[in-house]
């Protein structure tokens, strides 16, 4: 009897020993599953994630904006209130999407839907599953970012070609949050603990200079906010939206690069705890 698995087994037999328990080099199979599910899925569910920032933009930017009038932009010149918050909403929606996928979805699939259990009965390793799922989270983030940027374009809220760079930056923000989120999920035991996540995210959304500049706070509060990731995402997006850069641009980018490295390292260490009992 010929062994259909012979080529796979040979490949796996040659894996270095530190990778052998974790990674089969086949994350693409997890991604393939993701796309097959999207093809069968209800697009309505996916679309809700797109509409949320659009609704915020209409209510706050256009509605409230009529009361607020102009505000100083990143380069000091005055911009409309809608232009001020639009990039912040894009950064926030990248964060929310990534967290939703890497915390809620991963937790549900781990404990209830048994999708990962099925995957790990095959020659996939935990790292294949994690990489595949992070990729799918980024793909979803990409869809939202492109859609939202399209809306901004139509509404005339972007004034620079640099705004196109908001898409890869949205992915970077999503990657940072997704990897860290998955690491956090590995410590979660119940849905009650999952409820703590919005308690962190909501204040971060409200106070990270999303809806008003942080100059309204006393210095020490500003310091706390500047230590948190969303502020860097918001500021970075805001700079890109009008094509204005400063040395801080590099700081923001480095913050997310560092966060991604930290998140992925943590996830790798927690993979066995996350997926194996």
């Amino acid at each position, binding site marked *: 009897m010929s062994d259909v*698995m012979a080529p796979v087994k040979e490949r796996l037999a040659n894996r270095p020993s530190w990778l*052998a328990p974790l990674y089969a080099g086949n994350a693409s199979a997890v991604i393939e*599953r993701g796309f*097959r599910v999207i093809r069968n899925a209800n697009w309505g569910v996916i679309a809700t994630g797109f509409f949320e920032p659009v609704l915020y933009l209409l209510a706050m930017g256009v509605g409230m904006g009529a009361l607020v009038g102009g505000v100083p932009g990143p380069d000091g010149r005055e911009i409309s209130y809608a232009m001020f918050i639009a990039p912040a909403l894009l950064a926030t929606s990248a964060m929310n999407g990534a967290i939703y996928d890497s915390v809620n979805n991963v937790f549900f699939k781990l404990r209830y839907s048994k999708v990962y259990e*099925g995957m790990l*009965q*095959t*020659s*996939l390793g935990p790292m294949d599953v994690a990489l595949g799922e992070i990729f799918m989270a980024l793909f979803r983030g990409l869809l939202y970012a492109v859609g939202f940027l399209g809306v901004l374009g139509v509404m005339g809220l972007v004034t620079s070609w640099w705004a196109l760079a908001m898409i890869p930056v949205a992915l970077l923000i999503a990657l940072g949050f997704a990897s860290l989120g998955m690491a956090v999920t590995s410590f979660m035991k119940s849905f009650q603990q999952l409820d703590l996540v919005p308690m962190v995210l909501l204040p971060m959304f409200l106070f990270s200079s999303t809806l008003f500049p942080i100059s309204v706070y006393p210095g020490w509060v500003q310091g706390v906010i500047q230590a948190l990731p969303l502020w860097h995402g918001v500021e970075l997006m805001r700079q890109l939206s009008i094509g204005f850069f400063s040395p801080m641009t590099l700081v923001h980018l480095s913050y997310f690069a560092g966060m991604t490295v930290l998140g992925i390292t943590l996830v790798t260490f927690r993979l066995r705890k996350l997926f194996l*009992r």
Partner: protein
Amino acid sequence: MPVIQAQNLTKKFGDFTAVDGISFEVAPGESFGLLGPNGAGKSTTMRMIGGTSLRTSGSLTVLGLDPEERGPEVRASLGVVPQQDSLDEELRARDNLIVYGRYFGLPRAYLETKADELLEFAQLTEKAKAKVNALSGGMKRRLTIARGLVNEPRILLLDEPTTGLDPQARHILWDRLFRLKEQGVTLVITTHFMDEAEQLCDRLVVIDHGKIVAEGSPQALIREYSTREVVEVRFGSARNAAMEAELRGMAERIEVLPDRILLYARDGEGLLEQISRRGLNPLTSLVRRSSLEDVFLRLTGRSLID
């Protein structure tokens, strides 16, 4: 050389010891059973064999490899049928087979043919496009087994394969498993059904509280731990206990269960006659051959299914 070798295999969850230092070997082509009540540690043992549960101590090799150190490579040769179906509910029946095969790194062209072959094997050809949730319990079980065969495994791990199935579906499944065995696939089966163990297993270990309490072929275990026949008598739940004294000494061994009394003897009909000659008229009586159920009762003092 054995395909699975476990030595002092132990798994603790906090203070709870689920698997308590068990040792066993499985030979190639053998059909090996892990028999025990719910919570005995069978499923945990299965998960350790597949490398998805990390052992606390002891050693374990599957096809000469440590599943903890080379999980993906070990699982390339394994088919896993878990106790609870882990089918992908977001995919249709046939896609479940194809996607699962892709997880093994198998080529798409191979899987297109293989999926149809497996659907036929599982008698699900007409259900190829059905959603998983639209399938009956028996169909889901068969699809799960079909899925476990997509990589043509050398070892098939079946965790409670027929729990929740109706008798007809069980027999279909047993028939499929026999065919696999004929093809040389090694079967490792956990079950708490005695008839299933007797039907399917060449050899089995009886597990209780994470420990192996007996090992052998079904026939050998029955010979060793029970008599040839068993008489079951019922006097009504209020009187069963009181009748024990009357019956004592008539049989080699006597077990009083809440609803009935079991009398172990070589000649069941003879014993039953004796009982009625003494004027002890049970409400119902039954003579049957000893089964693994009796072995388990003898070994643990409890019945398997509470």
